[in-house]
């Protein structure tokens, strides 16, 4: 693993910690959904870097999975917020 990959992973871990702090801190549901969306992007980046380091297709499959899951999660939360607004 070369220096650039280690540096990039360190930056991504810092980004993930900051993003998790945003999710955990008291904020609105929409804010949390946005933060989780950013977190899935961070995880996808980390998986891509890991895949290039290991030269391994399995991590790329996981990255595809995370990309899809992030989309489904944000759409689901958006629909949920909309339906809750209609109830009120």
């Amino acid at each position, binding site marked *: 693993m070369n220096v650039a990959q280690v540096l*990039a992973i360190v930056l991504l871990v810092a980004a993930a910690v900051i993003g998790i702090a*945003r999710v955990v801190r008291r904020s609105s549901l929409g804010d949390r959904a946005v933060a989780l969306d950013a977190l899935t992007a961070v995880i996808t980046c980390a998986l891509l870097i890991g895949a290039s380091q290991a030269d391994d297709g399995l991590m790329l499959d996981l990255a595809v999975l995370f990309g899809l899951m992030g989309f489904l999660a944000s759409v689901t939360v958006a629909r949920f917020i909309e339906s809750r607004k209609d109830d009120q």
Partner: protein
Amino acid sequence: MSDILGSAVEVLSAACFIAGALLALIGTLGLHRLADTRSRMHAATKPATLGVALCALGAALQLSSTSDVTKVVVIVVLQLVTSPIGAHMLGRAVDDK
């Protein structure tokens, strides 16, 4: 010659990785710094597209097998298609002040 080319590819992919990771860090910092939900979405959706695309380019330059590079292309296309749709739906759903 191929040595020079190989190290140039290495440097390029390293630059892509660091740029993508830096973008992700700036995006999550923006989640804390910006004032309302839609401006935070503006910060959060940049790493979701450009950050992932840069990391994918860096990975594609280093991967050896063609099928792996195809998977990377699938990841980028998927991200480019789904990320605006998700952001659009969230943007419509969040509360208006």
